[in-house]
């Protein structure tokens, strides 16, 4: 874990005091809402349908047990006993009161956390692979890069008023688990032929109303050039990005309208200038960051405890099959704790559940936790021999759902149950789908399937890059749900295609049943996933299943 130095500590504390004063002035009437709104947004405080919402940054999704406990304490003391983990690896509280927000921020500062730059047109919380530092397919931990970028971008005077928000993600593994190509800047750690470390730099990715797959602008950027290069990208964007139209203000539109080659030439020219004045990151900054993410001291003793337990517990077997991933140390495994219990709100954890997760991290997991963009919690370093004990405690807490990567592991944004921007609800749709397919007992048979639901065009629920995406809109005064097919969130990112007209709220579940039923009918065998079948046959058979009446008409 990165530990705050005196500078970080003072900066965060000062910001709390500053915002406390701003809140007091708003309440006294000294500040109008127009004056106050940009200030509260800079501190992660939104106003939603039923209450304020505080978005707390979880840098690159990494937490320790003490921090998770504090999140639980905040949920109990100032909220309604739960929190919502988001697709940007953050946590949101849905019920803070304005006059208590500064106290919440004070409590966060006590554990080296804050809500700075979780909103506004600045560089947002840098995200990373949630298996960082643990995964067998990783060649370099992306978190030192993410932490360096956090320090560089926090309160960066030049990049505090960008044309629009700016999101950066980093991955250092063979498989992209951080949706890198859907970010304003995406970084893949790479090694060149000489074995030197560097980055493939991707720009102009994003979802929202104009979904775009990020384009590679640098195949290999030497590591030492990262900050001057990103500075060059941001300087060009800051100057040339459109400020006349909010919907065209992201860097993806600049890439599209300018063309990658022309924009790259501008960035390269700016980079020469930035690099000339860049003196490098001093060792006094780099060394503590590198040290903070050194791997834990692993306990390599093996035992047959897991194998013994597996032989008499089919539920444990099923959970082990779906929720564990390969660790770089063979004595260890990565545990993904599902926050998608059937019938529950995707991404929500109660304060009790947070405390259980904190305790498991402390007792078995080298005090590390991660939040995934898929709205689950990761225990990245669990000894295989400890799995039966970990599983038993998760089960007691209602956290042992065996569904990672399966149909009911659904991403869903808060939608119109909470969000002021939403055009329809997401949570009830996610719940309905999970409950229905649980009744049908088909989830295991269906196999790997990514369903992602957004309650508006802004696409917080990543619906474009789902195998089956659902977008909630308003149509003629009622909620309407559009289905997209064939999206892919990995390094081979694909934006899904809209299947056809939307479905009313009471039609979306039957439509999903027809769609998935069609897949089961037409797949070659049960090893062919939904996405593979879609790629083999195209969208025609799926459209036919979704719109049977239309098909009948066409046939007549």
């Amino acid at each position, binding site marked *: 874990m990165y530990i705050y130095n005196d500078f970080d500590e003072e900066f965060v504390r000062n910001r709390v005091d500053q915002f406390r004063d701003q809140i007091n002035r708003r309440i006294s*009437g000294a500040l109008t809402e127009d004056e106050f709104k940009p200030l509260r947004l800079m501190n992660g405080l939104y106003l939603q*349908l039923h*209450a304020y919402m505080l978005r707390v940054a979880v840098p690159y999704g990494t937490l320790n047990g003490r921090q998770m406990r504090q999140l639980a304490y905040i949920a109990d003391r100032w909220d309604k006993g739960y929190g919502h983990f988001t697709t940007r690896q953050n946590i949101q509280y849905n019920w803070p009161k*304005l006059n208590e927000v500064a106290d919440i921020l004070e409590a966060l500062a006590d554990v080296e956390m804050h809500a700075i730059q979780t909103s506004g047109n600045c560089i947002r919380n840098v995200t990373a692979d949630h298996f960082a530092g643990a995964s067998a397919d990783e060649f370099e931990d992306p978190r030192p890069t993410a932490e360096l970028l956090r320090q560089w971008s926090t309160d960066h005077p030049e990049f505090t008023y960008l044309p629009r928000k700016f999101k950066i993600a980093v991955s250092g593994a063979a498989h992209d688990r951080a949706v890198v190509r859907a970010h304003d800047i995406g970084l893949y750690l790479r090694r060149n032929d000489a074995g030197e470390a560097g980055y493939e730099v991707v720009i102009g990715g994003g979802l929202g109303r104009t979904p775009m797959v990020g384009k590679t602008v640098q195949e290999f950027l030497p590591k030492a050039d990262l900050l001057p290069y990103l500075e060059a990208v941001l300087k060009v964007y800051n100057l040339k990005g459109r400020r006349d139209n909010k919907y065209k203000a992201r860097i993806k539109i600049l890439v599209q309208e300018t063309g990658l080659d022309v924009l790259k030439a501008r960035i390269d020219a700016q980079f020469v200038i930035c690099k000339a004045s860049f003196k490098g990151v001093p060792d006094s900054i780099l060394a503590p960051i590198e040290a903070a993410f050194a791997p834990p001291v692993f306990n390599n003793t093996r035992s047959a405890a897991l194998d013994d337990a597996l032989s008499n517990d089919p539920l444990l077997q099923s959970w082990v099959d779906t929720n564990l991933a390969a660790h770089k140390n063979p004595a260890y495994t990565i545990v993904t704790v599902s926050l998608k219990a059937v019938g529950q709100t995707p991404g929500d954890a109660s304060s009790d559940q947070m405390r259980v997760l904190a305790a498991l991290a402390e007792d078995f997991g080298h005090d590390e936790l991660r939040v995934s963009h898929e709205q689950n919690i990761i225990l990245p370093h669990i000894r295989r021999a400890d799995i039966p004990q970990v599983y038993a405690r998760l089960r007691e807490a209602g956290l042992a759902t065996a569904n990672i990567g399966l149909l009911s592991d659904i991403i869903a944004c808060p939608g119109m*149950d909470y969000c002021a921007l939403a055009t329809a609800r997401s949570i009830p749709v996610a719940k309905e789908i999970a409950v229905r397919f649980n009744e049908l007992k088909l989830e295991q048979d269906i196999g790997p399937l990514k369903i992602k639901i957004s309650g508006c065009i802004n696409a917080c629920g990543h619906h474009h890059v789902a195998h089956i995406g659902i977008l909630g809109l*308003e149509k003629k005064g009622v909620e309407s749900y559009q289905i997209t097919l064939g999206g892919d969130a990995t390094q081979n990112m694909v934006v899904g295609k809209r299947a056809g007209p939307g479905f009313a709220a009471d039609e979306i579940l039957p439509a999903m049943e027809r769609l998935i039923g069609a897949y089961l009918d037409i797949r070659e065998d049960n090893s062919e996933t939904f996405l593979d079948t879609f790629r083999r046959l195209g969208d025609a058979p799926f459209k036919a299943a979704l719109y049977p009446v239309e098909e009948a008409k066409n046939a007549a």
Partner: protein
Amino acid sequence: MAREFVPQIITSNHLIEGDSIYLTEAGAWSRIAADAMLLANAEIAATTLATANLQTDLHVGAYLADATHFRETFRAVGPSNYFHGKQAV
């Protein structure tokens, strides 16, 4: 042809709790949607909203709303996943 004016209510969010609130006939704010004054005339609705917006130390972002729209129904009741919004009161 001008669109027919749909009767509207004035709703806002409370400054401290952020809770949805409704302007009543008496000119006060209520947390209950059913207490909302119904405005059948566009001109009166606009002037009433302008007056309401002067009370900026009480609430945030007052607007004219069609009370029958599903968004307003959700705001009036609370979220559907937990019964601890207005439903709990």
